């Protein structure tokens, strides 16, 4: 389709007073150039539409407010028919620069030229349609038939989606099915409640939208969202189904008490775990293992292996309330019984505090903080627990007929990346031409990851591993700090205790949330649109494979496992798995990965389109690459707060700093820019990158560039990487100011006049 470009500058919101719009338009070569006092008004929009109809304008370069504002007006055009590029003249110029100043005008001129360049380089989008390959399937596959899985299945089914539950065990119900009672969930938080799992199972079984496979595991999962091809092993028979999205509700398993010998497990016959206690209570009779007698006194040891760097470093969130509940079992089932609870802190969050308060009223319940020093068996089979630093006294000894260890929750998950390392190591050892260090590394990996052998649940056919990646504690990282349910595999959502320890109520809430995410996924994907965080984006990367050198950087660096490899290492892309962050585009040394509206060449052209003032004009130029997710909106706030900063910076927003291609650095320096500032999200343990590791990858790539610069005797200080979170907007003017001082110190770019 022929492109006809219209350039528009809005003079409303003080833009008109700060700059000369007409002068800026004069610098541009486009068939249609207009100003308007309020482009976002009905009259303004009418003018745009009029130009589109009568003049045939179909590519708009709009100089007005931030691209994050007035989206209800400017995002209404179909990107398959109209290109829209927003140039931020309000927050990034008019509101933060001296009105009427020569430098301010230069800034506007440059931004408009960059915008126009981008429009010239952009193409109309062609939405990816998975249906071209295979029929779309919106079925939601729920992995696990416990309370989380059943709830998620019912939520999705009630919303009209067909659901498949894949349960490994012979019966539905999961852990809740084995439980006696649950702690109270309603005011006044006094009486224990039935689990009601039977009702939930019956409801799921009766729902015509839900298909249930019991005794079922995954042989293989291929392809991506909406076109998943799934092979199941159901009772030993292969069953092939299709699916749209996954909800992982695989639940938890108790921490292995065999590691808790120091708390008496295995050494004292009457030391049991809270899970064993629950099963005993469900059978209706409490008896101690050694002689089957009713335990008249029961001692609970909280955080048994939890919040302990040697065992589970985290808090399992429910054990305190579970022990209070089980204390009630003992007190209700055994007359004149005494129950002791030795805790680190009692954690009964929110209104569950009332349950704790109610239990405190029980005169037969004895609570104290304390550290267990020793657990030994007495001659009569009872257990002697010695504790230190208790609230009752510095050192105390307690004797109980039975001790219950409140063990924590371990997610039922598989570490896809670890399994992959194992597979890779095996492949290396099979190779005949493998080098010695490679063989040694492979042998080491075999030992390190041996526990992961055969642990996969989904058996994904993904280059980056057959299951979800883990970050901490074996939980699939909910990869966007602020977004629960998300995992680092598009279309696969985690819910319940497999994601983070939680109680029944939270698991049910979680299930509903994950069902919602899965529904969003199948709906957006079936329309060829991206899911969160670029929800609705219809662009997708295309690979010019003829020039691919099979370096595998894209397949390795994609945080979402979008890309597989063929035997030779050529990338195979699965667009429905893609989040459109552009990290592959930044990674590719051959620059063969592009979006229709975002490419290496496009940004490079923007950089090259600018006229850099001569050295003697004393107007340095600094290029700022900014992450669209945090840094760019933070700069908008700087404008809204009317904070001033240097007029010598030129900002280019990026989908993610991970999409930074190193060639842009070279392009900037050779174009005469004196410095390059990159502002991205925080990385590390508490990373805030919307694409998990984009900003970190960018920083790694820059490290390599800096080395090169040093070798070329070009000051590496000219390039600076900053981590910023949205709330730190007030730091931006300072960061810019300091960087300008640095540039002042190191002097102008020596390439400037070439």
């Amino acid at each position, binding site marked *: 389709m022929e492109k006809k470009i219209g350039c528009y500058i809005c003079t409303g919101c003080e833009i008109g007073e700060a700059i000369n719009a007409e002068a800026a338009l004069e610098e541009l070569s486009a068939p249609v150039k207009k100003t308007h006092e309020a482009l976002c008004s009905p009259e303004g929009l009418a003018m745009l539409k009029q130009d589109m109809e009568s003049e045939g304008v179909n590519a708009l370069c709009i100089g007005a407010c931030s691209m994050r504002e007035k989206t209800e007006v400017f995002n209404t055009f179909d990107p398959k028919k109209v290109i829209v590029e927003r140039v931020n003249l309000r927050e990034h110029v008019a509101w933060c620069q001296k009105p009427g100043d020569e430098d301010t005008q230069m800034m506007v001129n440059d931004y408009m030229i960059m915008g126009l360049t981008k429009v010239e380089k952009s193409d109309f989008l062609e939405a990816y349609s998975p249906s071209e390959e295979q029929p779309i399937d919106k079925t939601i596959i729920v992995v696990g038939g416990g309370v989380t899985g059943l709830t998620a299945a019912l939520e999705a089914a009630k919303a009209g989606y067909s659901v498949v539950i894949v349960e490994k065990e012979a019966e539905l119900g999961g852990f809740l099915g084995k439980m006696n009672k649950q702690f109270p969930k309603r005011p006044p938080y006094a009486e224990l409640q039935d689990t009601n799992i039977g009702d939930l199972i019956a409801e799921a079984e009766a729902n015509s939208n839900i298909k249930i496979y019991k005794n079922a595991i995954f042989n293989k999962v291929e392809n991506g969202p909406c076109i998943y091809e799934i092979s199941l092993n159901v009772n030993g028979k292969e069953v092939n189904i299709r699916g749209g999205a996954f909800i992982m509700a695989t639940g938890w398993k108790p921490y292995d008490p065999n590691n808790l010998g120091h708390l008496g497990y295995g050494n004292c016959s009457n030391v049991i775990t809270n899970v064993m206690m629950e099963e005993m209570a469900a059978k209706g009779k409490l008896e101690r293992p050694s002689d089957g007698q009713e335990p008249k006194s029961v001692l609970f040891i909280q955080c048994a292996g939890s919040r302990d760097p040697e065992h589970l470093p985290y808090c399992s969130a429910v054990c305190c309330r579970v022990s209070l509940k089980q204390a009630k079992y003992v007190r209700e089932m055994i007359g004149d019984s005494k129950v002791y609870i030795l805790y680190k802190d009692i954690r009964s969050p929110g209104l569950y505090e009332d349950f704790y308060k109610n239990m405190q009223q029980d*005169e037969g319940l004895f609570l104290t903080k304390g550290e267990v020093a020793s657990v030994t068996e007495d001659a009569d089979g009872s257990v002697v627990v010695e504790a230190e630093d208790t609230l009752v006294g510095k050192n105390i000894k307690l004797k109980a007929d039975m001790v219950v260890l409140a063990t924590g929750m371990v997610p039922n998950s598989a570490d896809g990346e670890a399994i992959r390392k194992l597979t890779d190591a095996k492949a290396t050892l099979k190779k005949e031409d493998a080098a010695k260090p490679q063989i040694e590394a492979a042998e080491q990996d075999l030992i390190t990851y041996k526990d992961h052998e055969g642990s996969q649940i989904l058996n994904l056919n993904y280059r980056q591993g057959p299951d979800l990646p883990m970050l901490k504690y074996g939980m699939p990282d909910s990869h966007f700090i602020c977004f629960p349910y998300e995992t680092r595999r598009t279309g696969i959502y985690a819910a319940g205790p497999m994601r983070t320890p939680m109680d029944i109520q939270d698991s049910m809430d979680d299930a509903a949330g994950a069902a919602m995410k899965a529904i969003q996924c199948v709906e957006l994907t079936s329309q060829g649109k991206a899911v969160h965080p670029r929800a609705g984006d219809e662009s997708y990367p295309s690979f010019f494979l003829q020039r691919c050198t099979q370096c595998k950087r894209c397949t390795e660096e994609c945080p979402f496992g979008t890309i597989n490899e063929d035997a030779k290492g050529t990338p195979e892309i699965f667009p429905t798995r893609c989040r459109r962050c552009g990290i592959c585009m930044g990674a590719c040394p051959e620059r063969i990965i592009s979006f229709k509206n975002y490419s290496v060449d496009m940004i490079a052209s923007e950089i090259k389109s600018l006229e850099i003032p001569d050295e003697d004009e004393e107007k340095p130029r600094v290029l700022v690459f900014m992450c669209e997710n945090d840094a760019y909106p933070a700069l908008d706030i700087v404008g809204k707060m009317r904070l001033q900063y240097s007029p010598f910076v030129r900002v280019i927003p990026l989908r993610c700093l991970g999409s930074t291609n190193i060639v842009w650095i070279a392009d900037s320096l050779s174009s005469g820019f004196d410095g390059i500032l990159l502002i991205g999200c925080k990385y590390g343990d508490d990373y805030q990158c919307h694409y998990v590791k984009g900003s970190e990858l960018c920083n790694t790539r820059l490290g390599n560039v800096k080395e090169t610069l040093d070798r070329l005797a070009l000051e590496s200080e000219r390039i600076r990487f900053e981590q910023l979170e949205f709330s730190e907007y007030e730091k931006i003017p300072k960061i810019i100011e300091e960087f300008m001082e640095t540039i002042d110190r190191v002097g102008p770019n020596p390439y400037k006049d070439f």
Partner: protein
Amino acid sequence: MAKAKFIEPDLDFIHEISSAEMQKCYQCSTCTVVCPISPEVNPFPRKEMIWAQWGLKDRLLADPDVWLCHNCNDCSVNCPRGANPGDLLATLRNYFYTKNAWPAFLGKAVNTPSMLPFIIAIPAVLILLLAAINGTLTPLFPLEDGHIRYGAMFPGMTLIDPLFVSATLFVIMSFSISISKLWSGMNNMTPRVPNKGMPLVQAIIATIQEILTHSRFDECGQAKTRSSAHKALVFSFIALAIVTGVVAGLEWLDILFDINLVSSGHHVTPLPFLSIIGGPLKLLANAGALLLIYGVYTAIMNRKNDPEGETFGKQTYQDWFLLYTILTIALTGLGSELLRLVNIAPIAYSVYFIHLIAVFMLIAYLPFSKFAHIVYRTTAIIHSKHVGRYEMTAEDVKGKEAIML
């Protein structure tokens, strides 16, 4: 590491002292922080709260801190959980009066409201019996020269003195048993730090000073008004004790040596106002009585104006028993004097009879009523000064934690 002690909750004890409020304690220790008179090492009342929840009776009955508390209620007012530590300590003291004093049956009788008639009847019967033996119990109330003289019906030498001296001896015996038990218990719980504690005599003197000046009591935040009432009561009791002692001495001087220092007649009482000794004594007695009325009235009104016990703590039978006994003593004492002056014999003698009963109840039931705090608290304060409770530091008790806690 010191050897750990076995701990076993006493369910019966918990049942006796437990309250819904006490069970609310979650050991934040706000109470010990806000308490103006809690010592630095092992401060109270945080630890007492959990010991009570756990039913650790032996510790609590030997715990001097229960008595170091002056019940100012700062802890209860500031408790974030409404656990009322002040009430718990008061409950423990009441438990001590009720259960720990010898003989136990009297403890139960004095502290059980339904047995009030019985414990009033004891002195009433005793007095009437002694009067009958003396032959002074006549249907017509005796007048001498047309005037009332209480000694005519309730003679000092053969009625009052035998009765009250034997009551006093009984009280001393009872206390000697409980105090020796408490003292050794306190020594176990808080061993002396020799270089920090005072010698015993010095500790006793310092304690008397502290009590007379109310220096520690005045530190209590909520208890400002309580302290002034308490001061009035202490000084009035001292004044009245002096008067009683001097009068008894004068009477015995008169009886044994026939020396009457106050009047030319045969009797010391009623004290003639116009005499060198009698005049000041009478002034002192009346001043003491008025001060007593002021003190007890203030104390009663403090509690009346705080029916929920928000400022002064929960009200107990023990509180009211003591306050009304004192009020009765004060009103009937002053009433006896006035009725004697207006010379209405039947009423006057009756009021005086009630006065005697009330005084007997105060003295003879001392180990079992709240009044016993004058002995227990004094002992605990002496002990705290003797062992250096307020001066000792964490360093001093290092290694002894297992014994102390």
